[in-house]
């Protein structure tokens, strides 16, 4: 194995993780906003949501990234690859999570809504004490799934020259030709990150169930 490559790959992995983390945080905030739009009273707003999700989910992430990266200069925005890439990941993750949240809300059984309403709670506490915990429980598995997808999606950003694990691996390979070794190591790093997130998610799920979160005893 070429010297120093392990360190470089580790750094790249850290960048990938960071990109994914920023995208997940930003995406979650965006998704909450979008999901609210999805249930708006106004048909136009709901339509706008549908279009947004349709466009973002129907276009490959690479095309979105290239579009933002190459076409942004026309909007006079100072986007280097990192900003463009992070922006695209947030938009992408936001769309996916919005659908997850929307599905979670729709999955709440009718009786729950009715009993909540019969309690006479105003909207904000209703959301905080009843809707949010239920939605969280329903959406945790797909949410973790999207987190894993985001980590994998960050590898696509290597094509718009965002330096992360895949690009780090590519650079080392193009310099040293140790293709099998380096790609194997890169795959191992991704595996550890993704599998780790998946396991953490499951642990958290079990923890929530044990705590009796949202009325469910183990």
């Amino acid at each position: 194995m070429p010297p120093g490559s392990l360190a470089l790959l580790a750094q790249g992995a850290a960048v990938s993780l960071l990109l994914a983390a920023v995208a997940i945080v930003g995406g979650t905030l965006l998704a909450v906003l979008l999901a609210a739009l999805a249930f708006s009273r106004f048909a136009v707003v709901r339509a706008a949501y549908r279009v947004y999700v349709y466009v973002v989910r129907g276009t490959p992430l690479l095309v979105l990234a290239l579009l933002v990266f190459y076409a942004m200069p026309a909007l006079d925005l100072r986007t280097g690859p990192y900003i463009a890439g992070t922006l695209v990941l947030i938009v992408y993750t936001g769309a996916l999570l919005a659908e997850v949240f929307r599905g979670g809300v729709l999955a709440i059984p009718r009786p729950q809504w009715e009993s909540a309403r019969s309690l006479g709670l105003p909207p904000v506490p209703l959301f905080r004490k009843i809707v949010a915990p239920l939605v969280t429980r329903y959406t945790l598995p797909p949410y973790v799934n999207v987190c894993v997808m985001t980590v994998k999606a960050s590898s696509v950003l290597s094509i718009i020259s965002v330096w992360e694990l895949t690009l780090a691996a590519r650079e080392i390979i193009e310099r040293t030709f140790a293709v099998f070794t380096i790609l194997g190591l890169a795959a191992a790093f991704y595996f550890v990150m993704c599998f780790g997130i998946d396991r953490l998610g499951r642990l958290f799920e079990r923890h929530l169930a044990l705590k009796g979160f949202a009325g469910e005893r183990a």
Partner: protein
Amino acid sequence: MLTLRSRHVVTAAFVAILLAAGSPAGGQEKSRMDVVLDRGKLIVVTLTTVPPFAFNDDKGQLVGFDIDIARLVATALFKDPNKVEFVSVSAEGRWPAIESGRADMGVGGTTTYPDRAIRVAFTRPFIDSGISVLVSKKSGIKSVKDLDQDKYTIANLNNPQMADRAKRFFPKTKILTFDTPSAQFLAVKSGRANALQIDTPSAEYWAAQNKDEMEVLSGLLGASQNNGIFLKPGDFKWWLWLDTAVAEMRTGSWYPQYSEIYQKWFGKNPPPQKFYLQQ
């Protein structure tokens, strides 16, 4: 379920907004020169896999002739060669990085072409170059004529000039297009392609490093060429200063510093300052 009409109306509106935003805003801006001086740091966009112009050494540091020239520019501005930040991009990423203002100037084995000059402005050349063809010895290609056959594949970089040259000099050859020179090189090394076209110094560098497997075909594809610093067009103050700096490096007061860098990367002296001054 949305009706066919309303969903398409909203999508069309979305696309229309995107297109309308495509027209750039005009107006007077501060010259990039002032922005750089205020900032106290120079931001340079570069390819990072074109040795010896710009590449990562074994320790992962970005080094090269063009890198040192950029540092020389920083020294002229700030008396400190380390007041530079490099932005690494792929071949097509060079222009958006300049156009969006992310970088002040660019280097990296970038050749001056008239059609390219519509998008970015170039200073006078800071080094002469030309395009050579690097071939793998196994392929048995001995000349450009040999290359022009259906059974061979050449690795191009993603720019129109490479495509044009391919059409002009070896139209029958199959073409692969990559976004970085190192990907081109990996293609040849792994056997995906039999040849690649790239700036002569890069071709010679790679051939020297892989003496058993690769060699450079003699002769240039087309004419000798100019590699310059590129920047956003329309900014006369910044262009004039950069061009002056390059002029002084090649033919004036900064020739000694330029010579030192040239010696370091090419092992020989640069062309003389003035035709009547021989080294």
